[in-house]
């Protein structure tokens, strides 16, 4: 077990280094950050001077090695655009993204699972069909369009919710939270629905098909034969057994939510990491882009590790197999 974690951790370092390398290679083709930083009539000497100051005149591999060296010491460098340390900017933006992802994931679970159960139990009901139609929209419409549609309805036409921003936030130490104010909570609604809609429909469809599968199983028939209530059969036995794949998918999707938050954050001007990344791309802000990509890689690696460890916990067969193979 311990050896497994160590092995995975070493693999993770390799994954992150590769991501950093690929990212850095790509940045060579993104254009010149200097163009974004100087006036259009800046002289060549001024441009070269700035290039030297920023260390961009050094060869590619030197820049990469310096970046790696700094990364190991926890120094992410300075943003070209904002002029503050990247670590500080990411620390400022991380709470916004994580709160958004948390609410979106909650929305996906608490709407997706009950809706999946309902449509699984009442396959031909009118409400089921309605929910399935809605879910089709959620799967097929692109995120930015859903966001704009929600803004049009709830901000422009009805005027109930804000169309952009995070509302008023409260600072709890280093963490800025929107959970403690009315405007902060209102601001969370539209972006989290936009971000979570795809996951909601995914979970709903997953739960539905699993339910349909499980309800045909023998032990459900025996449970009914024993005279258990519908409630006990549907939720105590059927739902419990559908949840194993759902938990796996939901766990993996959290990484996806963090990564896909880019589009939602851009539509809603949400001051999180995804928005930071988009502006960094437009500005060719190499330190921010590379740090973001390495960080997202880290998230994925951690989530995958946790999911793998959950398999150990859930499935005893796996534990025995692994311990045998490590001998």
């Amino acid at each position, binding site marked *: 077990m311990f050896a497994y974690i160590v092995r995975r951790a070493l693999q993770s370092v390799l994954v992150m280094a590769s991501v950093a390398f690929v990212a850095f290679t790509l940045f060579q083709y993104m254009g010149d950050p200097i163009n974004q930083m100087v006036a259009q009539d800046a002289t060549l000497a001024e441009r070269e001077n700035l290039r030297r100051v920023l260390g961009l005149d050094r060869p590619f591999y030197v820049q990469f090695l310096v970046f790696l060296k700094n990364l190991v010491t926890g120094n992410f460098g300075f943003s070209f655009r*904002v002029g503050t340390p990247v670590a500080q900017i990411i620390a400022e933006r991380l709470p916004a993204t994580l709160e958004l992802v948390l609410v979106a994931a909650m929305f996906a679970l608490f709407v997706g699972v009950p809706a999946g159960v309902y449509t699984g139990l009442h396959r031909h009901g009118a409400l089921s069909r309605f929910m399935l139609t809605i879910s089709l929209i959620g799967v097929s419409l692109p995120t930015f369009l859903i966001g704009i549609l929600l803004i049009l309805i709830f901000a422009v036409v009805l005027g109930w919710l804000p169309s*952009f921003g995070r509302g008023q936030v409260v600072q709890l130490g280093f963490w800025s939270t929107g959970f403690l104010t009315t405007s902060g909570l209102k601001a969370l609604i539209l972006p989290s629905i936009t971000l979570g809609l795809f996951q909601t429909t995914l979970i709903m469809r997953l739960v539905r098909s699993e339910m349909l599968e499980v309800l045909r199983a023998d032990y459900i028939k025996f449970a009914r034969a024993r005279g258990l209530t519908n409630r006990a059969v549907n939720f105590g036995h059927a739902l419990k057994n559908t949840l194993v794949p759902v938990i796996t998918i939901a766990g993996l999707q959290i990484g996806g939510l963090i990564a896909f938050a880019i589009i939602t954050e851009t539509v*809603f*001007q949400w*001051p999180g990491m995804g928005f930071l990344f988009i502006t960094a791309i437009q500005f060719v802000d190499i330190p921010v882009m590379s740090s973001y990509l390495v960080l997202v890689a880290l998230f994925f690696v951690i989530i995958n590790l946790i999911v793998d460890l959950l398999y150990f916990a859930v499935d005893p067969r796996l534990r025995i197999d692994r311990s045998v193979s490590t001998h």
Partner: protein
Amino acid sequence: MRYMMATALAVAMAVAPAHAKVLRYSTNADLLGLDPAINNEGPTNAMKTNLYEGLLYRNFNLSLAPALATEWSQVSPAVWRFKLRQGVKFHDGTPFTGADVAFSLTRYQSEQADMRGYMATVKEINVVDPATIDFVTNGPDPILPQQLPLFFIMSKAWAEKNNTTQVVRGTSAPTFINFNANGTGPYKLVERVADNRTVVEPNPLWWGKLDNGITRAEFRPIANAATRVAALLSGEIDLMYPVPSQDKQRINSSKGTKVLEGPELRTIFLGFDQHRNELLDMKGSGKNPFKDKRVREAFYKAIDIQTIARVVMRGESRPTGSMVAPGIAGFSDDVDKRPAFNADEAKKLLADAGYPNGFPVTLDCPNDRYTNDEAICQAIVPMLARVGIQIKLNAQTRSLHFDKIGLKENRNTSFYMLGWTPGTFDAHNMLVNIVTLDGPGAGQNNSGVYRNPKVEELTLKAGTEMDAKKRNEMLVEAQKIHKDEYGHIPLHQQTLAWGVRDEVIDGSVKPRPSNDVDLRQIKMK
């Protein structure tokens, strides 16, 4: 706590817009930072103009007005003398003196200052007496006063106290000066959160008078155009720009919102490679057709600018024959007249030049820099195909485009699109950057290497000519020669569009030609 209460107040006021004196405005990108000596970019400089002042101020009509200096004159060819306004205080209460001007100069002229171009010709500043300073230039500089609105004066004592006397950027950039400000300007900084909001309030110590009704202004960037429109329509912001073309009607037809339009100062044009002996797309031919004036004329006349204005720009452009916009010093109505569109004549010109069947060439174009930039190029492709030119369109993101046509890749282009706003509001700046090569700092953006000795001479002379009338004649003559040679193809000036909530924004407000917000020029009802 104070900020939280202020925000709560702003939120409360947003609910009842009739009483709002809070101006909330937005554009598509955040300010780059508040350091006066770096971040030389339009909207950023406009915010700095709210917080800091130069010796002079630029009015809405681009003329100069007294600010920290009350009078100015030229005492000898290389010396400009300024009388300083007395009794002026910085936001923190320290008095403004000539020493602050001299200190600001050292900051502007330090190695890493992006704004150093504005003070490039200044040798030194001498404090003659507490009310008088002299700018000594490296030779006659007729346009020094034009540079002064963007030479922001900061407090020496404050900079020393906060350890920001040096301009540093990049790997060890101090952040204090980008998030704090202490100028003499009519507004003082309340709060700045990057990518989120920058909040200012009127400066009670300001020497002038503010009667625009604004008690607080919040700048809140919104990158997504559709969201920005929605925020205006839902009343969450009062003023925003740019307005996407397709949303103008919606804004105008909604109750309480309106689109304001005005001309912009940037001129969009096409340029040709007139330097290489062989065109990049004609390898092995040994020919560069653009060296022939008839070919350039044919290209000029083959482009139907009125159709571009009507269809691509939806009427939001002002077709032009001039490389500078009206309002820029040196603009001439005569130069502005465009030779008429005539495809048959273009064909004939090409045949005369020895290209009856045309030739292949790549058009380099940005796709995220100017209004409809890629669409304009896409419209030009069939227009030139009609006269036999085989155009390959290469549209790409701005950073790659500017690398390709710029000095970084040694002007790796045969035919390209570029836009230019003279930073000094003077045609001389355009001549230096776009159509000449010889003078100091010249030819940075002369990507096609256009060269004419007479134009070079006139541009050099105008650079030091102190007689305004003579100087203007030189600028116009240089532009005429360039036009008669079809050195570039000027296309148009874009129209700029602001969306406002006309229930709170006064009817007298007009969009600034430089497309940024100077709060003094905004009025609330």
